[in-house]
Every structure is written in C-alpha cells, then in structure tokens.
C-alpha cells in the first residue's frame, strides 16, 4: 500500500526535477515555497536546519531533497524524494546529451546558454536570501551569514572550515 503522502512527495519533486535549471541549489526557494508555505509540512526553521544538515553531510547538494522527504514521511519519504528529483531530469539528460554535444557550437545553443546564465544566478541569489531569512533570527546569526559570505568571497578557505567554525560557535551557545 503506497501512502498518499509518499505519492504527493513524489509528485512535487517530479515536477521540480524538470524545473531545476541551475541544479538543486537553484530550486531551494521553490522547495521552501512548496513545503513550508503551500503544504505546511514544516516550519521555516525546520527547513533551514535540514539545509544545514545537507551541507554538513558528505555528498552532493541535492541531498537536501532527501532530507525534506525524510522530515515529511520518514526514511522511505527521503528515498522517494531523491528518486523523484533525479529521475525525470536524468532521463532527459540521457536522451539529449548525445545530440547536444553534436550541436556544441551551434549559435542557438550558445544563445540558450547565454540566456540561462543570468536566470540561474538570480535563482541562486534567491536561494541565499530565502535561507538567510529562514535561518537568521539573531544578530549573531546575521553576523555569521555575513562573515561566511565575506570569507568565501575573499579567501580560498574550504567551505567545511567555515561551516565547522560556525558549528563550534553555535554549540558554545553564541547563536
């Protein structure tokens, strides 16, 4: 017996899979909009925490999807969400990758690529904004967001160092 909740999760991420131009991080605002604002499956703070977990865990950033599924419907929900998020886009990639490589230098392909780049950048900026809004409820949290942003822009430190130092400051009760 497949629960309606699992089907709903599958459906949500099925659609998102084909909308995720720019990768998993670019659809963060849409995931948040659907699971927090439309379906009320979790609070904004829950969402921010899941994102933190997905960033701290080893593996690709699409893992956030499985954590959202897990939060809503347990381990099975996590697996279903991951399959639904990767399935449709993978089939599409499988189908078109060959032809696409052949048209690598075609002017229309270059136009599409040039046209999508600013859209992707705007989506990713939105992700940062939505996550910061969900995560930052104190001035120390804002300070950590700002400091991480600055350090990531001007140094070549590995992101895990930044997350690690942040985790430490949080564990000490500063945030």
């Amino acid at each position, binding site marked *: 017996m497949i629960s309606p909740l699992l089907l709903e999760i599958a459906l949500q991420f099925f659609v998102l899979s084909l909308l995720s131009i720019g990768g998993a991080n670019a659809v963060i605002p849409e995931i948040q909009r659907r699971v927090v604002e439309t379906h009320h499956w979790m609070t904004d703070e829950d969402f921010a925490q899941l994102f933190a977990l997905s*960033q701290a865990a080893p593996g690709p950033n699409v893992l956030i999807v499985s954590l959202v599924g897990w939060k809503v419907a347990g381990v099975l929900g*996590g697996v279903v969400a991951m399959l639904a998020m990767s399935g449709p886009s993978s089939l599409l990639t499988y189908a078109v990758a060959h032809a696409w490589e052949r048209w690598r230098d075609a002017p229309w392909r270059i136009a599409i690529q040039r046209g999508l780049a600013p859209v992707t950048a*705007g*989506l990713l900026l*939105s992700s940062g904004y939505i*996550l910061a809004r969900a995560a930052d409820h104190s001035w120390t949290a804002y300070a950590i967001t700002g400091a991480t942003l600055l350090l990531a822009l001007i140094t070549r430190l590995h992101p895990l160092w930044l997350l690690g130092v942040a*985790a430490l400051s949080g564990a000490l009760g500063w945030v």
Partner: protein
Amino acid sequence: MPFARRMIVERRGWLSEAEFLDVLSLSQFLPGPNVVNVSIIVGRRFQGAAGAVAACAGLLLMPLVIVLSLATLYAHVSQIEAVRGACRAVSASASGLIVATALKLARPLRTASWKLVICATAFVGIALLRIPLLWMLAGLCPVSIALGWWKRA
C-alpha cells in the same frame, strides 16, 4: 563536484580536463542536480544505459544512506541546546555560502546590462514576490534566450 572531477579526470583518467568541462557545462545547463547529470553522461558514454544507472546509483547511494542516518541521529539529539545552537549557526553560515556562490556566478554578468536586469528580475520574482518557479521560468527564459540570441555578436 571538485571530488567528482578529481575522480573522473585525475584518478581514473576517464575524461580529459577539457572533456570534463564540456560535460559539466552541459550538466549545469540541463535541469536536474548537476552532479547527477554528470554521472548520467559519463556512465552512458562508457556503458550505455546500464553505465548511466550504475554511475548514478553509485554516486547517490552512500551519501543517501549517510545523510538519512545523520538525520535519524539528529532527531534524537535535537533537544540538546548545544546541538540546536550548532545547527542554527551552520544554517546561517550555509546561507552565506550560497550567496557567495551566487555572487561569483553573477560577477561576469556585469558586462551586459540586460543580463543584470534578468538576474534582478529573477531575484525579485522568486525571492521577494514568491512567484511560482514554473511561471517565472516560463516568462523569463524565452525573453532571456531571445536577448542572448539578439546580443550574441
């Protein structure tokens, strides 16, 4: 992704650096998780459909097991104040990382004002007005691609 590159290009020599960049740009441009798309393309190139499935499963299986175990563990310790604090701080830090990545992506857009306008429109629509992504993409992508075509000289 840096790990995927090291594995595919440096350790196994499956692709040259240039080939990998090619696969990467295609993966970023198609919908779907980028690194999953890379695995599909590389898997297919060597072993067809079976290769694509194997590469994708190999890529996702262990991280999925680890992250779901972590999540289950986290559910048990999430009442401890130190854990909650650490998690709040990591969320704050992670959002800063995303903004940094976005700004790095946006930096080359400075050369053309239409690109900045498209980027800003996407931000206002998605982040501030909370317009559903489907409508936003349906409205913005055709305009942006048309501009990409028209200004290609």
